[in-house]
């Protein structure tokens, strides 16, 4: 097996809101083709870590590298260009509420490609069909359910065939079957397109089903305590907090 290429490298990252330090000394690597899980208890800064990775919030200290490029040290234009190769699915979908699903998915295509309107329509229909929303083109976000909004959010994130997809709590607020389908979709896209996936979640079922690599943020220690394949971590780790998390609290602190 060849050594996988590094996609994102995080070095000595500290996240803070003003004086309040959320997490410090985060160092980990996301490889190309990984399904990388960012896990940890509520309020540990999972979502904040994602906002730093996608360029919405600057880190207090430390560096993020996309390939060889220092993401936060670079000019805003370069940052824009890097993040355009990424797609983001927000926790609540964050679809533009004044536009139909088709228009939502079409906007990135209209902005960054020279496709004809007919081609765009076809691509939009394809992406919506991929997430199981064929026929919902003319619906507004407020007219469909929360789970459908999340899937439409994925369709929009996939519009430009990104190299990396970010998911903020994809299965939160979904029924078990929909959550499972979403996991399958993430796995399928990862396998067939080779897209790197970064998934922020605390759903154990998802973590073990799809994760190939992960980082665990320990809220009590204010830093990461483990990184690696989640199933491997469950088998090997001796860290009581991590075991508590991965076994849903059944294995109490030893």
């Amino acid at each position, binding site marked *: 097996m060849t050594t996988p290429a590094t996609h994102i490298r995080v070095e000595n990252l500290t996240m803070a809101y003003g004086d309040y330090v959320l997490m410090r000394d985060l160092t980990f690597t996301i490889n190309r083709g990984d399904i990388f899980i960012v896990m940890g208890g509520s309020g540990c800064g999972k979502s904040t870590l994602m*906002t730093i990775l*996608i*360029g*919405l919030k600057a880190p207090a200290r430390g560096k993020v590298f996309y390939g060889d490029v220092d993401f936060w040290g670079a000019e805003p234009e370069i940052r*824009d*260009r890097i*993040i*355009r190769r*990424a797609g*983001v699915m*927000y*926790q*609540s979908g*964050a*679809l*533009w*509420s*004044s536009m139909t699903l088709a228009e939502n998915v079409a*906007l*990135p295509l209209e*902005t*960054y490609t020279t496709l004809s309107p007919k081609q765009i329509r076809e691509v939009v229909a394809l992406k919506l069909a991929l997430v199981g929303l064929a026929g919902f083109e003319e619906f507004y976000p407020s007219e469909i359910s929360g789970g459908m909004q999340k899937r439409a959010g994925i369709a*929009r994130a996939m519009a430009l065939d990104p190299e990396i997809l970010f998911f903020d709590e994809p299965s939160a607020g979904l029924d078990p079957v929909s959550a499972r389908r979403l996991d399958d979709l993430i796995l399928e896209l990862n396998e067939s397109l080779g897209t790197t996936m970064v998934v922020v979640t605390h759903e154990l079922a998802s973590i073990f089903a799809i994760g190939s690599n992960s980082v665990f943020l320990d809220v009590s220690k204010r830093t990461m305590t483990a990184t690696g394949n989640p199933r491997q971590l469950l088998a090997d780790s001796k860290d009581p907090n991590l075991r508590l998390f991965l076994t849903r609290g059944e294995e109490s602190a030893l």
Partner: protein
Amino acid sequence: MTAPGELVLEEVGADTLRVVLTGAWQLGGVLPVAETVQQQCASRPGVRQVVLDGREISHWDSGLLTFLMNLQKFCARENIRLDTEGLPAGARRLLALATAVPEKKDARQADERASFLASLGNQTVELWRSAADLLAFLGDAVVAVMRLLAGRAQYRRADLWLIMQAVSAQAVPIVSLISFLVGLILAFIGAIQLQLFGAQIYVADLVGIAMVRLMAAIMTGIVMAGRTGGAFAAQLGTMQVNQEIDALKTLGISPMEFLVLPRMLALALMMPLLCLYANLMGILGGMVVGVWLLNIDLIQYYNETARAVGLWNLGIGLFSGFIFGIIVALSGCMRGMQCGRSASAVGDAATSAVVTAIVGIILSTALITIVCNILGI
């Protein structure tokens, strides 16, 4: 009717205090407080153990639990052993659950009571910061306009048309009413004074110049600040709450061009038209008073108005309208973009947008008036 909750203290040996709880320990009634036990312990420093006896408790709810929580906190602080064996099993389990996760000490927001000087300093710093934000926003807006002129701005034409319709045609009824009434009021006030000199005809001059040069623009501006500025702030604020603006940013689409630019453009283009229309309605309002109340001939009133109102007046009025349109749009959009992530933040943004717009309108009116005065126009 069950007996209310009561508490009896019994001393068992030198180091043990027995607390017997009886009756209904339910919220809403008068319940004993944990301080009673604390005082007893304080008066007898030898107490090392508190034994609770709850066999006589008939009913209980959160009232009992809050009492127990307070007692437990006190005992932990004073290193006194708390024996809960005698309590109802349910209450014991809930108490254990409530204390399972230790209180996070630094999670509580520090209760800061800043001194007068400190808060004055903070507010001054805040003022500077908000002034810097305003300038940054203005700068971004100018850059967006430049990109528009260069033909490179990203926005949807359909959005522009929709917003234009919302800020013009749909505003006509309220602008008609307000400007007609303002014209009417001006005429009434003028008429009373001018009648003293037998110079009723000059009501036409008064209403015409006041409306065309100033009042139409100001009244339309204020109506639009309340109607449209607040709406813009609420729209963008809600988009901020839903992370829709984040979604734009991560796609590399500038919210400034995509959201702010069409709104600014629509108001800047439509406000002069609304002003022109408000001029007509205001003059009509004055004419109603002039013709019916002061018995001025209709043609005479018209001629007098046409003679008094010069092109300069019209130009200044429409220019003011244009500026007010930009002010209303920018303050609405700015407050919306600065909005926090909660429902009340959206409300604050809408309020603040209207206030900012009205202050901006009045300030720029003063500025325009002074400049015109200096230039002698």
